[in-house]
């Protein structure tokens, strides 16, 4: 006789119990032989054994053989955490021809042997857990994993180097990629840099070919100036709503000739240029930077006269002429796409040094952040690559303060990882461009990485000064005439053992990396977790670094934690590979632990609906009953616990199964 799923009718309960020694891991603390003998005495148990390594091939063979020879239809394995080997043993059951969900595991390693010292007590506790499992497993029902087809398209959120690399990898593999970037251009932080450490190759020279490739790739649908506003669905089948902000330029018509910019009624820049961090001004119509992708201008309604007064001469429209690419009436638009996997590469923000007033940022005009200096050094930056002070003069001495907003109990405790290396790079470049004396103030130099320590050595040879000491303050208070008109950096030199006052013309703050300001909103949108610091949380820090706890959503780059370019690229490649592996399987197997509503008992109170974190419960208006969508249900059990009339039940966690387990633990034989 066969049941609904095609599995043979199990007939009377015959349980096999298998107790694993795990070498000495379990056997050292639990009397495994006694447990095995005890189990044999329990009702329903047909056979009971202990073995050195149940997870080994011979261990599994033991189970399979017993199923055949002893006619077993339920199996209890007492070994390690089910996270590690539940799948192994389920496969063994399946191979032996019984439903894999007729298995119950008892974790006597992490829950018993590793946390107890007293062998007698540990053995007693194991007996209780075995009793529970034996009672429970006899109530197990045959279950079937579900197969769901996967949409082969992928969404990549964030167009920095990580997002670009992930998108290109997937697109080159023939997948359709939707790349969404909230700024008017892709490129991210990397596009703002001049050189990259430790090789000093030009950031633009290595980045812009990849940006152009994204812009022209037939498999990439690039949406800039756009944001994801809604995500529904589940692994393999996500529905994503994207908002496109108005550029006031018709993308398809704009050629990027920039004649409108030249023709704008403002002859000079008017608003702080975001790309140059406010170090220069831009016009209301602008291209963020020369190599921007796409090469489409943007109009900023905050500064454009036409938006302010409606009385502009509109010389831009005149300049655009026949192409008619300018549209002052453009509105934001929404679009819905369907994808099977999502890669988040939303990056980081730099620490705002006003939060650390010791450093004088915002009070003394010649205190800069490292990112601002990147722009000063960059040939397309506000000073065309000249490193000059606000008054246009060249600095003769420059102090670089490390760990601003990093390794600091008052702000951020973490090491931002990239600052030592970029500080070395800036020290080299500033010295090269200005000939200034450069002082680095550091806590520890952290330069692990290929060619990184060698770069540090090179800087030492170049005569850059290094002072080991956390900076106490930057001040314009001159004690000595030589300090007049300078910024004095005061720090304890912990190698020399005294306090130094070093007067400089320019101070560069090596600001740390922080989660994006809206990381929590994005986290909620995509239903993933953040670490306590606010970085996106990976599924496992070592073994699943680009996966999240939401299946089908991957993370890459600095949104997961501070990372330099090589690491971000490596992680983006890994995320793309994981997404590919998922898509190419064409379908996904889902655990059958779904909840279902007992219609005759449901009162239609709807209290379960808002409880569901996956929007899996709908209300059937015709029947006035709640209904769980099996495909959306993740089996978290929240609705089961929340239902006031107890009319929701969950596969594998049915009330009678749980009660049997509890009774088993509590019944002393």
């Amino acid at each position, binding site marked *: 006789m066969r049941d609904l799923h095609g599995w043979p009718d199990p007939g009377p309960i015959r349980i096999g119990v298998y107790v694993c020694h795990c070498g000495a891991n379990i056997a050292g603390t639990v009397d495994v032989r006694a447990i095995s003998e005890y189990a044999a005495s329990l009702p329903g148990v047909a056979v009971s054994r202990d073995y050195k390594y149940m997870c080994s091939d011979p261990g599994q063979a033991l189970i399979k053989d017993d199923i055949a020879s002893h006619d077993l239809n339920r199996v209890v394995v007492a070994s390690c955490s089910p996270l590690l080997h539940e799948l192994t043993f389920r496969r063994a059951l399946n191979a032996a021809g019984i439903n894999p969900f007729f298995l119950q595991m008892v974790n006597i390693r992490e829950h018993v042997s590793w946390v107890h010292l007293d062998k007698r007590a540990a053995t007693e506790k194991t007996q209780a857990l075995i009793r529970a499992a034996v009672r429970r497993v006899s109530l197990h029902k045959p279950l079937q994993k579900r197969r769901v087809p996967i949409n082969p398209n992928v969404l990549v959120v964030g167009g920095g180097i990580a997002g670009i690399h992930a998108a290109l990898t997937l697109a080159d593999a023939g997948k359709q990629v939707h790349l969404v970037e909230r700024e008017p251009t892709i490129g991210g932080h990397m596009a703002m840099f001049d050189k990259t450490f430790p090789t000093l190759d030009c950031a633009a020279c290595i980045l812009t070919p990849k940006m152009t490739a994204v812009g022209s790739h037939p498999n990439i649908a690039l949406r800039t100036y756009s944001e994801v506003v809604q995500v529904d669905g589940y692994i393999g089948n996500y529905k994503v709503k994207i908002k496109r902000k108005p550029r006031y330029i018709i993308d398809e018509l704009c050629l990027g000739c920039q004649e409108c910019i030249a023709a704008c009624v403002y002859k000079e820049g008017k608003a702080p240029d975001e790309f140059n961090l406010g170090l220069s001004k831009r016009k209301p119509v602008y291209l963020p930077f020369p190599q921007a992708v796409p090469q489409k201008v943007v109009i900023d309604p905050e500064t454009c006269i036409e938006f302010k007064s409606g009385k502009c001469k509109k010389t831009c429209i005149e300049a655009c002429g026949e192409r008619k690419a300018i549209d002052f009436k453009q509105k934001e638009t929404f679009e819905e796409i369907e994808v099977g996997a999502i890669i988040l590469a939303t990056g980081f923000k730099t620490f705002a040094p006003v939060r650390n*007033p010791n450093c004088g940022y915002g*009070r003394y005009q010649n205190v800069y952040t490292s990112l601002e200096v990147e722009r000063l050094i960059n040939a397309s930056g506000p000073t065309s690559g000249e490193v000059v002070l606000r008054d246009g003069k060249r600095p003769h001495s420059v102090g670089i303060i490390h760990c601003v907003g990093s390794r600091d109990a008052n702000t951020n405790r973490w090491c931002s990882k990239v600052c030592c290396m970029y500080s070395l790079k800036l020290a080299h470049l500033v010295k090269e461009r200005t000939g200034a004396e450069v002082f680095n103030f550091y806590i520890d130099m952290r330069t692990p990485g290929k060619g990184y320590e060698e770069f540090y050595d090179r800087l030492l040879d170049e005569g850059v000064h290094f002072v080991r000491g956390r900076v106490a303050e930057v*001040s*314009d*208070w001159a004690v000595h005439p030589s300090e007049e008109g300078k910024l004095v950096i005061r720090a304890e030199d912990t190698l020399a053992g005294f306090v130094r006052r070093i007067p400089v013309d320019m101070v560069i703050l090596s600001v740390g990396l922080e989660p994006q300001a809206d990381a929590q909103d994005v986290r909620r949108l995509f239903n993933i977790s953040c670490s306590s610091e606010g970085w996106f949380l990976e599924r496992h820090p070592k073994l699943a670094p680009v996966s999240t706890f939401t299946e089908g959503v991957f993370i890459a780059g600095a949104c997961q934690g501070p990372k330099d370019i090589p690491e971000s690229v490596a992680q983006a490649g890994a995320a793309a590979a994981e997404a590919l592996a998922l898509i190419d399987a064409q379908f996904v197997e889902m655990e059958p632990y779904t909840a279902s509503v007992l219609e005759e008992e449901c009162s239609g109170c709807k209290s379960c609906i808002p409880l569901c974190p996956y929007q899996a419960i709908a209300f059937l208006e015709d029947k006035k009953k709640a209904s769980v969508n099996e495909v959306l249900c993740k089996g978290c059990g929240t609705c089961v616990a929340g239902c006031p009339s107890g009319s929701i039940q969950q596969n594998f966690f049915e009330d009678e199964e749980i009660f049997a387990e509890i009774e088993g633990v509590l019944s002393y034989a």
Partner: protein
Amino acid sequence: MKFAYYPGCSLRGTGRAYEESLLAVFRALDIELEELDDWNCCGATTYMSVDELTSYALAGRNLALAERKRQDIVAPCAACYLVLNKTQHYMEDYPEIKLTVTRALAAIGLTYDNHVRVRHPLDILLNDVGLKAIAAKVKRPLKGLKVAPYYGCQIVRPYSTFDDQRNPTSMDRLLEACGAKMVHYSLKTRCCGGSQKGTLPEIGLDLIHYLLSEAHKYGAEAIATVCPLCQFNLESFQKESGDRHHPISIPVVYFSQLLALALGAPANKIGLQRSLVPIGSVLAEKEIAYA
């Protein structure tokens, strides 16, 4: 608004001008103060370095008295403000200190459950009263009087409850609301020398000189302080530190004196007549009436 007023010893001694002016300000702004009945030494001065526990117990008694009245404490003196705050923090963080203090209080029939907030006048004026309300009551604008805002260390470190530890701005904003102009002063929270003038006079005088000369360099016509000890150091030793470096003469007043003046109080009712370096000529030059 009603608070328990804790003057401490300074405001009845060298800091009389602080008390006179502060009471005038609070009166003008309708903030009611009720002096804490039977208050004792705050526990600062030398207690803290000789016998910390006694110091916490002394502070604890003042806190317990205020708690019995269900009032928050206003502690204008920076040293009192710090010790009262510190005692609260230490009683929360260290159970053994809490136990000892609680036992000492029990011996005199008092209890303390950490329900009292210790407030500084700057905090109350800025956050409870507000700049707008104060500006609205200004009768004698300070007409761009150039003031160096000097906070000293104790009200912002280590418990910066209402202002930044390194770059406080509460006094700047209050005095600006009264029409004064704050000069650039990067030594806002640097050491005034404390009691070094008594123990290592050269160091004390150097520190005093740094503060005076930096204010002078940026054209300050007066230094405003929030701490009786800072005020005493900066005002009383101008000649001595001048002899050691170069002479600088600059009025050093409590912020509350400038506020009270702006709110219309006569100079001789707010302790300005007690100044060793009189501010009268500066005010006269700006045509700010101060009688």
